[in-house]
């Protein structure tokens, strides 16, 4: 079985970001970028499944500008067998990404597609679900535990939901998105980084995949959240009730 893992290159989580002065987006120039932490978890899970003998190959795919190759190399250094870089000059929204992944899945025929549950730059939490819908495959999102059954060709997935944990069984092929507590991604070792340099990364274009990238969504403006106003100290409970009733209108 082949596992396809989609990884995204995002602004590193520890970096302080700011909005560009022209409000078209976040300033990503000269900013440290890394693999999305949830994508790392997804890749780690795929690698563990391969090491357990359930899969033969782990393929990492990234969609974006040429620097995505660095992200893919990191994935290869962790242990992925090969990488696919889909060249795209700007960042796409989840539906476009899902369409690209669907085209890739049609070509690669994986038994499992792993994604992080969301990217930390846009927090969309949509791509995995859309890929499953486009492919007509079952999906198990927010996975905190994945157990494969080779004979039944299915996966039992614990999902982290608001009420606690939900256990699903999905038939393969399936789409799984990973949540925080699924695993702890491994460090990539220096010898593996060196080996990763010779692992193949296939370059593909949107034309190759015949994907329509027209989006119905347009980003109009990006602004910083409004500055938090300072609180007011009230002198008595009555005053508090008065304020809640007449100023905040919540009582």
């Amino acid at each position, binding site marked *: 079985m082949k596992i396809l893992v989609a990884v995204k290159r995002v602004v590193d989580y520890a970096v302080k970001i700011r909005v560009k002065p022209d409000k078209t987006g976040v300033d990503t120039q000269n900013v440290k970028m890394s693999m999305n*932490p949830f994508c790392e*978890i997804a890749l780690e899970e795929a690698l563990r499944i391969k090491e357990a003998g359930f899969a033969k190959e782990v393929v990492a795919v990234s969609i974006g500008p040429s620097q995505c190759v*660095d992200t893919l*190399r990191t994935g290869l250094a962790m242990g992925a067998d090969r990488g696919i870089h889909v060249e795209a000059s700007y960042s796409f929204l989840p539906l476009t990404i899902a369409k690209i992944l669907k085209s890739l899945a049609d070509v690669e025929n994986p038994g499992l597609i792993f994604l992080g549950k969301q990217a930390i730059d846009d927090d969309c939490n949509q791509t995995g679900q859309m890929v499953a819908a486009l492919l007509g495959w079952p999906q198990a999102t927010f996975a905190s535990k994945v157990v494969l059954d080779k004979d039944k060709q299915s996966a039992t997935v614990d999902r982290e939901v608001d009420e606690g944990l939900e256990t699903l069984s999905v038939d393969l092929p399936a789409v799984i998105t990973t949540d925080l507590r699924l695993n702890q991604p491994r460090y990539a070792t220096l010898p593996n980084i*060196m080996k990763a340099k010779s692992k193949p990364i296939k370059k593909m274009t949107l034309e190759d995949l015949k994907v329509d990238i027209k989006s119905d969504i347009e980003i109009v403006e990006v602004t910083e959240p409004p500055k938090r106003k300072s609180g007011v100290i009230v002198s008595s409970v009555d005053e508090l009730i008065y304020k809640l009733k007449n100023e905040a209108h919540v009582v």
Partner: protein
Amino acid sequence: MKKMKALFRSSSSSSLSFTIMHRFLLKLSSSTNPLRNSKNQLPLILPRFLSSTTASESPPPPRTSHPSNRFISRSGHPYSADSFRKSQAFSSKSRALGVRCISSEAGRESIEYDVLIIGAGPAGLSAAIRLKQLCQEKNADLSVCVVEKGAEVGGHVISGNVFEPLALDELLPHWRQEQAPIEVAASSDKFWFLTKNRAISLPSPFDNKGNYVISLSQLVRWLGGKAEELGIEIYPGFSASEVLYDASDKVVGIATKDMGISKDGSKKETFQPGVDIKGRVTLFAEGCRGSLSEKIIKKYKLREEVNAQHQTYALGIKEVWEIDESKHNPGEVVHTLGWPLDPKTYGGSFLYHMNNRQVALGLVVALNYKNPFLNPYEEFQKLKHHPAIKRILEGGTVLQYGARTLNEGGFQSIPYPVFPGGAIIGCSAGFLNVPKIKGTHTAMKSGMLAAEAAFGALHEGSNMSTYWDNLRSSWVWKELYSARNYRPAFEYGLIPGLAVSAMEHYVLRGKVPFTLKHGKADHEATDLARKWKPIEYPKPDGVLSFDVPTSLYRSNTNHDHDQPSHLRLRDPKIPEKVNLPEYAAPESRYCPARVYEYVEDEEGKPKLQINAQNCLHCKACDIKDPKQNIEWTVPEGGGGPAYSIM
């Protein structure tokens, strides 16, 4: 837009608004409790965590940041806190005894290169590039590896910086046509003497014509790209934690730090032991007060060998601001003296206009100050409120913050930089020209000269000592020699210092038969607290001045918190026995990252808390601790600040 924000603990409960709770949530969900105190007798105090949390979406810190990476999965020995410390202490001895020699030991992988360079800064990268150039010229083939503790090349690089392109012209003569991030020519040299309210213009002792206002972090990134084009292997995200020796006590390389050890010393699930990286020649380019370089200098007595004095240092604290277009004047270079520092404390500030409406602003304070209550960070905040500075910053925003120590010892403190197996280059040896406050060009040149010596040693059978000979016949030596008396003159006070500076600048230019000596070592200069009064610093206004957690957030610094503190106390009792009562805990003031805090323990007694996660890798604590009790060692690779425009 949810982003992870750093957890910067401050017992004075200031901004809790910045927290990374990924690991914390992870731990809470599992059975291990991060708040439990270690039962093992560690010489370190485990930091306590504040339990507030923000966003529920808190991914774990990336194990593999771009492309920071860690080490192999081997090695079997069990790790308890005790055996961890013991094995660390023991292993360097065992190597000296030849137990862990050149051949790879069971469980540790060993990678060999012709030349190994520690540190991808200006000196390290220049040395690497020069080596490959020589290989091309002489049709040789040498493998060159550069290891760098920052997650990215340039991530730990911070400097003023008004760049003198002398060495770069020699190294890469066509840099102007290769999109080097060197674009803003210095257009004016202003020099102000500041009093509390005024800025008195003085004739500038600097002449920066032909120099450029740059971000050194950007330049180093560019140099890194050039180096990779030449086939140099650069591995960011790996910290060199130990020097490796062979049976004859010759340096054969370094060992990278073990990764995945938890705070109490036990191995985590992701544990990887370090890798031995060996070089036929090893060059140390760790920057000012490099942790391994200091060990090497001590071990081989490199200062004694040439009768060099001790090194002296200053702490530089810097911010990059984006200011109002109308106030921006690209190329303008301003230096100040005087306020807010008192006449007995050497230091000054700088304000350089870069491009993109950015200005670099910083305060440099010599670390031989006497008053233990001095707080360089707060002095910097004061500086920003000076009318002449405020005028420029008003309406702007801070983009990045950072701090780093720099050498002030100059000529008198240069050690013999060659040792069996390699050499020390750049600020780790100490080639900064103090009156010019420039060290980049000399660091680069020293790297190039060491590369030439290494090439000779490896390819032509000569000796590494030709590095020393070539240094002494180069412009680096001439420059540092003629600049040698400026800084020591300030030992006598501000006025004598200025007087000597004027004499040197206009008349003498170093052509005197004597060489002034440095005063006490920085850590010895600190006076007892009872001789001084605490300084009342104003509260930050949140617009021009800020508290430490806010500033730290802008340095993008982070470390995986579940690792042993990389700041080691040689004697764990000294902070409470000596630092606090006798010196009023200066480490809680000179550290620009609030790593050191005294908090009350269960019995109400003050105890030192080390917030190692905040560390900016500036090395001030290693330098200034009165009893030299704090030892700065490398944390896991990839941690530390993420400077991009500093």
